[in-house]
């Protein structure tokens, strides 16, 4: 009985190592970030892109945000969006609730900055700014 158990243990030790060994010939499932990146799906919720021309200033996005991270202010005859990305939980409520589809969440997920204040975005005529950053 004891011997049988011992043999069983040895068998499974070998089997375990063999399984690991077998895997060393398989294709890697991980990606070597940051050199290579995975393709993100369309609906991915990253940093916000806001189209000031579409926005009508209804402030629905402010109301639905669970953490009060987003603010729309009127400046002169246009709107300005303030967003605190350090607060944002990327839930997408603002994007889903905006009736004018002025807010879109982009594929940009690399938000590391050296200065925390850089995460407080103040976007006026947003399109150009975001595009410039993405380039």
């Amino acid at each position, binding site marked *: 009985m004891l011997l049988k*158990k011992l043999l*069983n*243990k040895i068998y*499974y*030790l070998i*089997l*375990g190592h063999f*399984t*690991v060994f077998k*895997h060393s010939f398989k294709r890697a*499932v991980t990606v070597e970030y940051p050199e290579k990146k995975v393709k*993100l*799906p*369309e*609906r*991915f*919720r990253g940093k916000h892109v806001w189209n000031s021309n579409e926005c009508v200033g209804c402030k*629905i996005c402010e*109301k*639905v*945000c*669970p953490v009060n991270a987003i603010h729309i202010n009127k400046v002169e005859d246009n709107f300005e969006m303030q967003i605190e990305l350090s607060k944002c*939980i*990327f*839930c*997408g*409520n603002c994007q*889903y*609730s905006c009736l004018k589809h002025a807010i879109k*969440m982009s594929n940009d997920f690399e938000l590391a900055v050296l200065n925390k204040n850089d995460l407080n975005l103040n976007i006026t005529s947003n399109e150009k700014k975001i595009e410039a950053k993405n380039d």
Partner: protein
Amino acid sequence: MTDIMKINVGPQHPSTHGVLRLITELDGEKIISIKPEIGYLHRGLEKLAESKTYLQYLPLVDRVDYLGGFFTSYAFCNAVEHLLNIQTTKRTEYIRTLCMELNRIASHLLWLGTYMLDLGASSPIFYTFRERESILALFEELTGQRMMYNYFTFGGVRFDVDNNWLDKVNDFLNILPKAIGNYEKIITNNAIFIDRTKNKGILTKSFCSKYAITGPNMRASGLEIDFRQKMPYSAYNELGFVVSVNNLSDSYGRYLVRIQEMRTSIDLIKQCIMFLKQNKDNVSCNINPIKLKIPQGEYTSYVESSRGLLCCYIQSDGSEKPYRVKWRTGSFYAVQVLPELVIGQNYNDLIAIFGSLDVILPEVDR
């Protein structure tokens, strides 16, 4: 008789699956008393609800159990729908069921990997994470995020599923049984694994009823209670499945139940896919979630989550914000029963038994 030694396991212990502190008293290697200290991951999710509107609270609900976001989301949405008295379409319910079952597989896979790690086997976690990753990629494509989905809404879901996505799920389901077979090949009859799990942490039927244990832990004690079958919600009354149950009552039994449940989930998802491919319908209701006011009343919804019975109680006073939200989660009770299982056991079995209960701390503390 040696001196009694008091040690703290956790809260920063990697095997406590979060931040649980176990104040343990040892006589040599033997555990003579143990006291779980919870609360390190308390985020006040119940109190927070009272200061948020229903729509604002919806994304936070996923965080009650971050390994089973769809279950908590469903419980909350379901309660709100009942209070509003709205009927969801069949397609919505099938999509929700599909998501929840995929979530159950993902959650059990993570449990399997980490449990093996608890027992000292370090390679299975890579295999289970590989499969779990495929599920998360599917979720990401559907909902936009890997864990905090914010996908179910009041009366529907945010996006309809398309055949392309369903095909991808189907492809994944075709490789999963083989993967589960491979895990079983190196684990189920392994004498080292059996040594550490057989007859360890016996959870008797009386403990189950005394401590209100539910889910796979209870089903491994021979109690055939599955809320998906007993009180069918969502689309479960139209789906056929066999409840996995066994009489072993020990850690090994709990392992077998979870493996079996993954297989059951595969069956259920296949049935859902078949329905979704044939029946097209709306997936949202005509309500405006932004100005949602819920009539006075209260309701408790229940879901069979991967860790047991999950309940969401909402009391509304007719305003935009809930008056009270209460969560009942399976893990909380599993932590309470731990002293009964480990007192008198060897110290090295503590984590082996605790891991088998599949406790995750965010669910305990909320």
